[in-house]
């Protein structure tokens, strides 16, 4: 059953055209059920889903139009892209995974760009300890371009503040696409380990 846009011909008899017309109307009916509510159901013509076939390039957008489409993104996997009006710069909206590592209460998410967002909690960290954060997220690799990496760590506690308070500050250094090292300033002595929240944002490799 193939749709034929060139029938009937003016020289055709109706006994020829009738089957061609039926085939065309049937083709329209079947094609319309792809991503759309069927003609035979309530709300015919509404989208039931928006399944996007991977494109080789970006669509052209006018001043009153934007584009939502799929093309190959980072990691060579199809991703959803948004292109703003007047041929704006395409933005990758999606990434292929979300992860949760229960051991470290660590999450992997993403932002438009694309950017990968990694965060979690590391307990009992000592000064100059190197944290291999990427190992918490199997299959994730970040770009090694230093300007695309961001890291922020925050000391935290499970319980109320100790008394007297023990001032602590912590910063991350030696940041790479796989690890960072904690510089912990501890005023009191002897030094005690601390817990930290970490937040790393980078681009997919």
């Amino acid at each position, binding site marked *: 059953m193939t749709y*034929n846009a060139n*029938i*009937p011909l003016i020289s055709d008899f109706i006994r020829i055209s009738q089957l061609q017309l039926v085939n065309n109307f049937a*083709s329209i009916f079947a094609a319309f059920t*792809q991503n759309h509510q069927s003609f035979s159901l309530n709300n015919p013509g509404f989208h039931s889903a928006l399944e996007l076939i991977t494109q080789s390039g970006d669509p052209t957008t006018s001043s009153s139009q934007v584009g939502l489409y799929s093309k190959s993104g980072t990691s060579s996997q199809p991703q959803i892209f948004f292109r703003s*009006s007047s041929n704006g710069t395409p933005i990758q909206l999606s990434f292929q995974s979300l992860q949760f590592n229960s051991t470290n209460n660590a999450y992997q998410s993403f932002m438009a760009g694309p950017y990968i967002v990694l965060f*979690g909690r590391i307990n009992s960290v000592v000064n100059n300890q190197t944290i291999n954060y990427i190992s918490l997220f199997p299959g994730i690799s970040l770009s090694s371009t230093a300007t695309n990496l961001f890291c922020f760590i925050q000391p935290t506690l499970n319980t109320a503040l100790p008394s007297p308070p023990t001032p602590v*500050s912590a910063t991350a250094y030696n940041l790479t696409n796989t690890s960072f090292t904690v510089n912990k300033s501890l005023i009191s002595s002897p030094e005690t380990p601390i817990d930290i*929240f970490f937040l790393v944002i980078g681009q997919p490799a």
Partner: protein
Amino acid sequence: MTAPINAYDPSIPQGDDVLSISQKNLLDNFQSLTQAFAVDHVSLINSVIGGNHNQAQLLVQSQSRASAENQMNIYTKLDENKAPQLFMRPIGNAPEIQYTQYQIYPVNNSSAFSTLPGDLLVDFGSIAFAAPSITIQLTAPVTQILGCWFMTDAGGITPNTQSNWFPQIIAANKINLFYKGNVDLEKGISAAPSQVFFLIISKLGVI
């Protein structure tokens, strides 16, 4: 912008038409359908995936669109800055969500929130400090606070300007969790920080 398809006539053929009349009408209709389906869709001539989308070019709408109980609506309209943006209306005509230009529903003059895929809520902004501690109320119900990061305008790396924040959840109910950060300042600091910048990531959901 493409011109309207005027050749399509939904009322043909008429019952008393002879084929010599209907033939051109039918041909015009089929060719109009072919032309219309070719916009953003795989051609009708493709018997396997004809009708699938190649892309979605969304004409800017003059107002928000509604959604039924079993329907999600994705559309484009102008945002507050008069720029075309992508919006989503969840099922059941739930509150509209702006997808592009991440954010922002202002909470007050200095804080805001957004979301990350994975049901993650991101609260961020600045808040005036009132010694010895402050409480930051999250903007939506969450099941767990996953991470908290702070900076103060009295922070620093020298001993005399170090500040000390220990995030701690102090209360929770079925509407909101509350988050408390206790600040302690080292000797030598004569004044508490006047402003705290914060970033909090939480798991969205009703407890």
